[in-house]
């Protein structure tokens, strides 16, 4: 910008010389040129403004745009102000400088100096150029410079003003010489110029010659316009100026003319273009070094611009560069304007110039004033033009646009609309300005200020007006920012600072651009839409994040607490196999506890044969083992006890040897048990099969004891070889009258009670099922009866106390020998197929079948209420017999009611039973109403005596013989077949009733009798068949009951007698050897006795 100004300043230097010396017509040209230059400046100013705006817009948001625009407008105003000032100053300075130079030239005619100055200015220019396009800075510098210049020049101005007239007069003389020189120079420059142009074309030619040509044309056009304007104006002005010297100038006319000229411009385009072409050749009149430097500058500037506008579009850049180049091209054209004009106007307007020159020359004295006026008017026109040129560059640009795109025809109208108002404003200024201008130079600055103020005022008004327009257009303009900016870049930014009210045209241009762009877009879209199908895409789900429910949230936050993940793989080699573990071996085994039928365990996979064998073996083994252990344990216990007992008995025997003559030794059972304390023993009974098993019946005691079993009868089961304690303890609530063991092994105990009930105990029951009592330190188990007929079978039971209970011998008559092996009897008993007979005192004989249930019911049987829960053995009532009737018919009168006291079965035939009565008779009956041959067995003498039969005992050796002990002390020996006794001993007991009478087990002819006076008589029929062999009187502790025990097989140890003492002691007396060892003649003795008796 600055450089351009200088350029113009410099350029105007020489043409002014020329003008002054050669022709007055040059003035107008010069003015036009200047205006052109100022136009350029304006354009440049605009571009810089645009450029300023660009970064701002980029940096700021769009919302700021409006505000920004306002601010930029303000700025622009300021710029304008500055520019005006500058232009004014510049103009004046130029002229002053020119005039100084003129003076110097005229006086000294030193072209050398001038050239030097040019060089200096050029140097300045260079430096400015190097400074780059930072316009503002430069502006400031320029202003400083100008001020300095102004001050410098102001002093000179006075001289100048004074000198002017003088100078002008001298001009006339020297004018011719200089004109000649100028012509010579002109020719020289023309050559230079053509060369330069050629060069320039070559430079830019590659990119697009057409455009350059277009630009050239444009510029030429512009030139022509200006020239025309100037010509017109000059024509008038020359007239006017002359007038104006005397009167106020009428600028309105000029303005009108200018408006006309604008309109005319387009009309003349073609002509002008043609003319321009011609002019092109004459443009260059500049000194060579000047032009060179300018070329340099061009190059540099373009480089800088390229740097600055890297981001811009290529085309914009190119355009600008070209434009600038053209503008610069014009610069030289401007310098030699006068000459150009002179030459140009040779063609159409020669007349004018001729006239002028003629007039100039003819009116020589006037010319001085005219010249001065010219200078002033020039200055004035420049300023006016500056104000008015706000439009012109746009016009020019629009012309350019027109040439690019031929659709901007309506643009001029916009400007024309604007023109009048602007012109008016300017007119005012000018009118103010002019008289002062016409006056003195000293007042220039103040005048300028005023002018500037006025201009500013006017511009502000206009801006406000335009602002409203702009605000309306603002939205559109925002849209069009992009194209506008690009457009803006096309303008020369090196002349940024000079700018007038540009905004109107920006708006208009924007509107136009937007229109253009819109139409283009529309066209484009219509064309494209034919080719393109737009469609709705599917609704795409970009994100679908389901809400987390509470459980997931909980698990997410706490689920992993205290857990650890681990994995394990079995069978690592076969990672791909579905089942990764080894095949599981399966084997079926079973076991059972307790082992019942076929063993404790088994294996189903073994062969059936082996299995069966195994099972048999195990079965056999276990059975045998159980049997073995059972017997062995018993044997061991017995042996130990025996050993101990023997030692005791031996010591006892020594003391007791005196008292019991038959005894070989004795053993005392331990009856000093707390629950047996002070109980009388009513009965002692030995098992017929297990001869070492004995039971003792302890009657209930009246004295209270520590144990609460006082009212109960206690039955103790003893093993005589284990005298320390009873094996089992049985209890029953009522008094037990009689009892017996089961046949075979002693596993059941039957008892008849005084209450008429028959009870049985199963000794095999486990102790855990029974009532246990801790007495002292020992635990005793008291067994309640397994089955009781008490009140259960009231209809079929006994109504009086049971006097005798007897097991019905098995019907295999004659077979049951004591020698029957243990196992056989055991087997027999295990079947438990036997009958029980019970006889009550009223003679009712009941037969019971003993039944063993296959399975115990722990819960108790709902039907058999007499069966204890868990019990397996029960009694079934089979038949009932009344045995007492027949006997009592005759004797009942004398002796009262018959009582049946004792029941015995014939061991060899279970159908025959013998009942001892209270009539001294033993009735003989049969169970199946068979004929009993002797109905009864009587005393030796006939007749019935009321004597109780207390004891009946069959001989174990001869089963058809039995002994009967009677209450009167008589003892009878009967055979089954005879009514009369074989033998009868009346006074053997001295009248004492016989309590008990039993055969010895080892000797057939020996039996023992206990009488009520506690006398024990031992009979040996072989030795003495009239009286007992031994009679022992036990007076110290009365013997209340006795039982003979012994085994014929084991004679040595098994023969003895159990004596029950009054005190409750049970004493086992072993017979001496002579009572136990069998004598072969004994049975013969009995035979002989039988035969003797009958």
């Amino acid at each position: 910008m600055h450089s351009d100004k200088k350029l113009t300043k410099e350029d105007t230097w020489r043409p002014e010389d020329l003008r002054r010396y050669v022709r007055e017509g040059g003035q107008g040209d010069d003015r036009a040129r200047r205006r052109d230059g100022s136009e350029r400046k304006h354009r440049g100013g605009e571009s810089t403004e645009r450029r300023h705006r660009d970064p701002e817009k980029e940096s700021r948001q769009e919302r700021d745009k409006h505000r920004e625009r306002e601010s930029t407008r303000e700025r622009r105003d300021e710029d304008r102000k500055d520019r005006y000032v500058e232009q004014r100053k510049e103009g004046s300075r130029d002229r002053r400088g020119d005039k100084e130079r003129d003076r110097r030239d005229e006086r000294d005619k030193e072209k050398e100096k001038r050239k030097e100055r040019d060089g200096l200015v050029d140097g300045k220019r260079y430096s400015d150029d190097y400074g780059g396009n930072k316009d503002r800075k430069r502006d400031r510098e320029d202003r400083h410079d100008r001020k300095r210049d102004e001050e410098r020049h102001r002093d000179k101005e006075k001289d100048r003003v004074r000198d002017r007239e003088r100078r002008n007069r001298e001009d006339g003389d020297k004018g011719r010489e200089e004109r000649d020189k100028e012509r010579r120079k002109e020719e020289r420059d023309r050559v230079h110029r053509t060369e330069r142009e050629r060069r320039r074309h070559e430079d830019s030619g590659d990119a697009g010659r057409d455009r350059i040509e277009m630009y050239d044309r444009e510029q030429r056009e512009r030139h022509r316009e200006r020239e025309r304007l100037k010509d017109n104006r000059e024509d008038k002005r020359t007239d006017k100026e002359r007038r104006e010297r005397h009167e106020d100038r009428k600028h309105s006319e000029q303005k009108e003319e200018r408006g006309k000229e604008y309109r005319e411009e387009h009309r003349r385009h073609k002509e002008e273009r043609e003319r321009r072409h011609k002019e092109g050749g004459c443009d260059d009149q500049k000194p060579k070094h000047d032009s060179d430097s300018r070329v340099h500058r061009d190059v540099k500037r373009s480089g800088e611009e390229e740097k600055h506008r890297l981001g811009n579009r290529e085309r914009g850049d190119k355009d600008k560069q070209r434009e600038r180049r053209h503008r610069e091209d014009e610069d030289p054209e401007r310098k030699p304007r006068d000459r150009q004009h002179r030459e140009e106007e040779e063609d159409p307007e020669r007349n004018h110039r001729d006239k002028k020159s003629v007039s100039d020359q003819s009116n020589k004295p006037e010319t001085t004033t005219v010249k001065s006026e010219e200078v002033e008017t020039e200055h004035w026109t420049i300023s006016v033009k500056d104000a008015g040129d706000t439009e012109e560059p746009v016009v020019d640009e629009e012309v350019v646009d027109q040439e690019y795109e031929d659709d901007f025809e309506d643009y001029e109208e916009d400007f024309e609309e604007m023109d009048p108002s602007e012109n008016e404003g300017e007119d005012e200024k000018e009118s103010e300005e002019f008289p002062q201008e016409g006056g003195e130079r000293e007042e220039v600055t103040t005048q300028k200020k005023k002018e500037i103020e006025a201009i500013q005022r006017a511009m502000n008004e206009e801006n406000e007006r335009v602002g409203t327009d702009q605000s309306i257009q603002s939205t559109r303009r925002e849209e069009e920012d992009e194209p506008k900016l690009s457009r803006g870049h096309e303008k020369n930014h090196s002349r940024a600072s000079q700018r007038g009210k540009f905004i109107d045209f920006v708006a208009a241009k924007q509107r136009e651009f937007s229109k253009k762009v819109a139409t283009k877009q529309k066209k484009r879209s219509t064309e494209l839409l034919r080719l393109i199908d737009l469609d709705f895409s599917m609704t795409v789900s970009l994100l679908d994040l389901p809400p987390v429910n509470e459980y997931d949230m909980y698990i997410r936050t706490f689920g992993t607490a205290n857990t650890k993940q681990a994995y394990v793989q079995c069978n690592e080699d076969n990672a791909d196999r579905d089942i990764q573990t080894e095949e599981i071996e399966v084997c079926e085994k079973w076991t059972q506890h307790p082992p019942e039928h076929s063993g404790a365990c088994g294996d189903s996979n073994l062969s059936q044969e082996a299995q069966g064998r195994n099972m048999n073996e195990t079965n056999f083994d276990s059975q045998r083992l159980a049997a073995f252990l059972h017997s062995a344990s018993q044997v061991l216990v017995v042996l130990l006890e025996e050993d101990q007992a023997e030692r005791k008995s031996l010591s006892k025997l020594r003391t007791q040897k005196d008292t019991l003559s038959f005894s070989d030794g004795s053993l005392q059972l331990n009856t000093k048990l707390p629950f047996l304390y002070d109980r009388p023993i009513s009965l002692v009974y030995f098992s017929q099969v297990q001869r070492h098993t004995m039971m003792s019946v302890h009657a209930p005691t009246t004295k209270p004891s520590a144990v609460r079993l006082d009212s109960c009868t206690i039955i103790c089961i003893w093993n005589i070889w284990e005298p320390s304690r009873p094996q089992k303890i049985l209890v029953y609530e009522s008094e037990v009258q009689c009892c017996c063991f089961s046949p075979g092994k002693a596993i059941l105990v039957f008892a008849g009670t005084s209450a008429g009930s028959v009870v049985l105990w199963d000794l095999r029951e486990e102790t855990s099922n029974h009532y246990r009592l801790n007495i002292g330190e020992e635990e005793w188990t008291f067994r309640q009866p397994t089955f009781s007929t008490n009140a259960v079978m009231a209809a079929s039971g006994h109504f009086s106390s049971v006097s005798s209970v007897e097991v019905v011998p098995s019907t295999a008559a004659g077979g049951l020998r004591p020698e029957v092996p243990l196992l056989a009897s055991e087997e027999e008993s295990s079947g438990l197929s036997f009958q029980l007979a019970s006889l009550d005192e009223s003679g009712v004989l009941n037969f019971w079948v003993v039944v063993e249930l296959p399975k115990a019911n722990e819960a108790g049987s709902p039907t058999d209420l007499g069966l204890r829960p868990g019990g397996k053995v029960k009694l079934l009532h089979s038949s009932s017999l009344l045995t007492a009737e027949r006997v009592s018919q005759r004797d009942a009168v004398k002796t009262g009611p018959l009582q049946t006291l004792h029941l015995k079965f014939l061991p060899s035939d279970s159908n025959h039973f013998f009942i001892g009565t209270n009539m001294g008779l033993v009735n003989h009956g049969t169970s199946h109403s068979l004929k009993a041959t002797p109905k009864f067995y009587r005393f030796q003498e006939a007749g019935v005596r009321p004597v109780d039969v207390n004891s009946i005992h069959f001989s174990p050796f001869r089963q058809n013989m039995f002994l009967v002990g009677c209450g009167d002390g008589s003892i009878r020996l009967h055979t089954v077949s005879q009514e009369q006794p074989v033998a009868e001993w009346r006074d053997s007991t001295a009248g004492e009733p016989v309590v008990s009478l039993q055969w010895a087990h080892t000797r057939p002819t020996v039996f023992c009798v206990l009488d009520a006076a506690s006398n024990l008589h031992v009979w040996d029929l072989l030795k003495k068949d009239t009286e007992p062999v031994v009679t022992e009187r036990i007076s110290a502790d009365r013997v209340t009951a006795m039982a003979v025990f012994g085994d014929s097989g084991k004679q040595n140890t098994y023969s003895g007698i159990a004596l029950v003492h009054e005190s409750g002691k049970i004493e086992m007396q072993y017979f001496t050897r002579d009572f136990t060892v069998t004598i072969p003649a004994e049975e013969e003795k009995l035979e002989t006795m039988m035969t003797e008796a009958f």
Partner: protein
Amino acid sequence: MESSDTYLIRPHHQHKFKPAIVKECIREIVREQLSGVQYDPEEVPQLSRTLADSVKEKVKNAGFERYKLVVQVVIGEQRGQGVKMSSRCLWDADTDNYAEDVYMNDSLFCLVAVFGSYYY
């Protein structure tokens, strides 16, 4: 701006908008910038902006000529709420396309969607 009547209404195959590539771009940038980031309402607006810019730059350099890009970044906090987002476009399905990728960590989810619209 020479408005000749020949239009390039289809992109070259190699310049066509390829969702897979764009998705990879998104994924890379998002992983890079969001890994280990906790949701902070103060920072997230800036974060999403920078994210969008960097995604745009990256996709621009991927060589989809004549494509206008729209990058949408949504960052939200993960508090167990349900979120549903969907998009719908009126476009030329032959040339235009989109790519999206979702990044999630414990405290936030981030969805980046890039729409490429062909400029004829």
